[in-house]
């Protein structure tokens, strides 16, 4: 096994720099589990470990906690009691369930063979659509405008009498850009087309209230809002039906077979409650820290931020630093204990630039110079101050090295 032989590279060289704490600014990738959430999970491992589908006392004792979690999830996204929220493993599963389910329920046997989605979507939506294309489904991938937005008009113009489903994310993971789901939902309702939205990056950052915005299917994942990994949810509006992706037992009313992840579900319920309770804080404090970092970075010459500030989730900053290659930048940050991410081609396994940045196409260099900082309610002012200092030093060093600056 040679894979881990060079592990010493990441043995936290930042300790040598005198900064003793790690700083996590990659919250759009995943988040720390809120300690309060962790506490709610704990009893379900060694004490209340019953299968909720069991009749006996071990099953009986866990069910109230699951009912409570369902209450938290329904009120968390504004679902009505008649709607379904299927607990599953992640948003990738939810998105696959919706898109593949549409194929088996509708597209396969009728003349409606068209799906509209966007070039901004997460790979799980994009690749599910690609898969259906191989089975005769026609897919339109809407390109964003210069602001990184998909407008309701774009959706409307793309709808034909064959369109069955529109799938548009609520907020973009790379740039934080919030899409006009409310307007898109009106267009879809008016045109009689179903709407699915991947809300992974929206929950906990902006208000997701399905009483106000009508969508037919909505997906989310607990680990993006300080819940654990491996648990997510799929909302299905009242009266709609999707065939299960996983066949088997009667769990989740037959919508999703497999023993329910009790600890995960309880945790997700708690996490969404805390996330919604923190929305004000997120939009005030997290936004203030994000803006502080953004303003500080913008003081350097030739730095540009993707997406208008008011159109972005409050925690996300995607910045292009001219002359500084993205992987180099996050390397230098990492050397100082700071975690951020890049859409740079050089940092991906395939050496391909993020398709989202290519889609926005604002600046050719963007695909190579982009660095994403994503904060959370656990980010502190001190962390942002350190990050500003380290980032400025990294920019200076890498620009000295650079041919193109």
């Amino acid at each position: 096994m040679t894979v881990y032989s060079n592990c010493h590279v990441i043995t936290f060289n930042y300790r040598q720099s005198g900064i003793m704490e790690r700083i996590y600014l990659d919250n759009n990738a995943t988040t720390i589990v809120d300690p309060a959430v962790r506490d709610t999970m704990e009893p379900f491992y060694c004490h209340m470990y019953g299968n909720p589908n069991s009749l006996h006392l071990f099953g009986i004792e866990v069910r109230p906690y699951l009912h409570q979690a369902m209450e938290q999830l329904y009120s968390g996204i504004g679902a009505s009691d008649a709607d379904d929220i299927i607990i599953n493993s992640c948003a990738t599963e939810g998105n696959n369930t919706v898109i593949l389910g549409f194929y088996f329920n509708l597209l396969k046997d009728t003349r409606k063979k068209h799906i509209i989605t966007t070039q901004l979507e997460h790979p799980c939506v994009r690749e599910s659509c690609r898969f259906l294309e191989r089975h005769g489904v026609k897919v339109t991938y809407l390109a964003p405008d210069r602001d990184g937005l998909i407008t309701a008009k774009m959706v409307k113009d793309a709808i034909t009498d064959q369109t069955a489903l529109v799938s548009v994310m609520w907020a973009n993971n790379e740039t934080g850009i919030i899409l006009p789901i409310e307007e898109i939902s009106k267009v879809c309702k008016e045109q009689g087309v179903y709407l699915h939205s991947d809300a992974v990056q929206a929950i906990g950052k902006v208000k997701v209230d399905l009483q106000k915005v009508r969508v037919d299917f909505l997906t989310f994942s607990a680990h993006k809002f300080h819940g654990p990994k491996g648990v997510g949810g799929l909302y299905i509006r009242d009266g709609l039906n999707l065939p299960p992706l996983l066949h088997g037992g009667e769990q989740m009313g037959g919508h999703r077979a497999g023993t329910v992840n009790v600890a995960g579900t309880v945790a997700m319920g708690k996490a969404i409650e805390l996330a919604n309770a923190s929305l004000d804080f997120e939009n005030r404090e997290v936004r203030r820290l994000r803006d502080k970092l953004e303003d500080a970075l913008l003081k350097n010459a030739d730095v540009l931020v993707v997406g208008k500030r008011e159109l972005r989730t409050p925690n996300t900053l995607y910045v292009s630093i001219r002359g500084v290659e993205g992987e180099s930048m996050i390397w230098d940050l990492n050397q100082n204990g700071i975690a951020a991410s890049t859409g740079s081609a050089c940092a991906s396994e395939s050496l391909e630039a993020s398709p989202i940045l290519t889609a926005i196409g604002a600046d050719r260099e963007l695909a190579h110079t982009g660095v994403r900082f994503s904060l959370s309610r656990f980010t502190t002012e001190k962390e942002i101050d350190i990050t500003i200092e380290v980032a400025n030093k990294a920019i200076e060093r890498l620009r000295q090295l650079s041919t193109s600056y």
Partner: protein
Amino acid sequence: MAKSDLIGGELWEQYSQRVADRMNNPRNFGELTESDAQKLGGRLVIADEGAESCGDTVRLFWIVDEKTNIIKKATFKSFGCGTAIAATDMMAEMCIGRTVDEAAKITNLEVEHALRDQEDVAAVPPQKMHCSVMAYEVIKRATSIYRNVDISTLAETDIVCECARVSLQTIEDAIRINDLKTVQEITDYTKAGAFCKSCIQPGGHEKRDIYIVDILARVRAEIERERNPHRTLSAEFAKLSVIKQFKAIESVLDEHIRPVLARDGGGIELEDIQPGENGIINVHIRYQGSCKGCAGNVAGTLSFVEQTLQKNLSENIRGVVV
């Protein structure tokens, strides 16, 4: 896929300590100027190389002693990822003390080897091998500037895989000698296509002149043809226009048949070509000279003519004496 491939995401863990060190503290970065060159008594060479699709660019500075052609100092600047910076730094160091011609022979594989901590552990993960290719190309560029020759005269011919430096000839030989049938087999035998994968087929990270899938298809077709000449010939002959079929038959008659018949004072003329059932091609011939009226021409001579045409053109040919 296998146990070690399923988790993924490993990139930096696979950089050697030497790569990390040079990324953090490159020894040879910066610019050299005419006044530096004067001080060292050499000529300044500045070369730029950049791959648009990759987003990496590199600039190499040399000061070369024009009497000995020895590179006295080398520095670089780079817009690139950690691997590109580390590889270029190592490459610049490897140039120092060598003659320009010696430096021009440095390959990205040598640079990668010099960056290893342990002899048998690669310095960078497979997909990052690509990032060291530019460090190699910029040396070629600097050499062409110093020598004042066109860079194409220095380029090695027919390199299919830049990352592993595998030539067309090597790949063709590997397919033939080992009877390879898949791209994976070619990669296993030659390392071509093991790194950035651009050279495997169109649509990869970088556009290439020649792709492994095409080489494989061509060489396999050649191998099949050699093993089974008749079948392939038949298919090709059937596709020809009647005029070309006519000419091809005429040339076989001239080359292989008429000289034999002429020894006995005979001759042969091609009269017509008629398609028959099941792909059969009826070649109508007329005997001349002593062949005419010879008792043997129906059996012996016709069989000779027919077999010769079949062997050279198509096994579907049938001779018909008019």
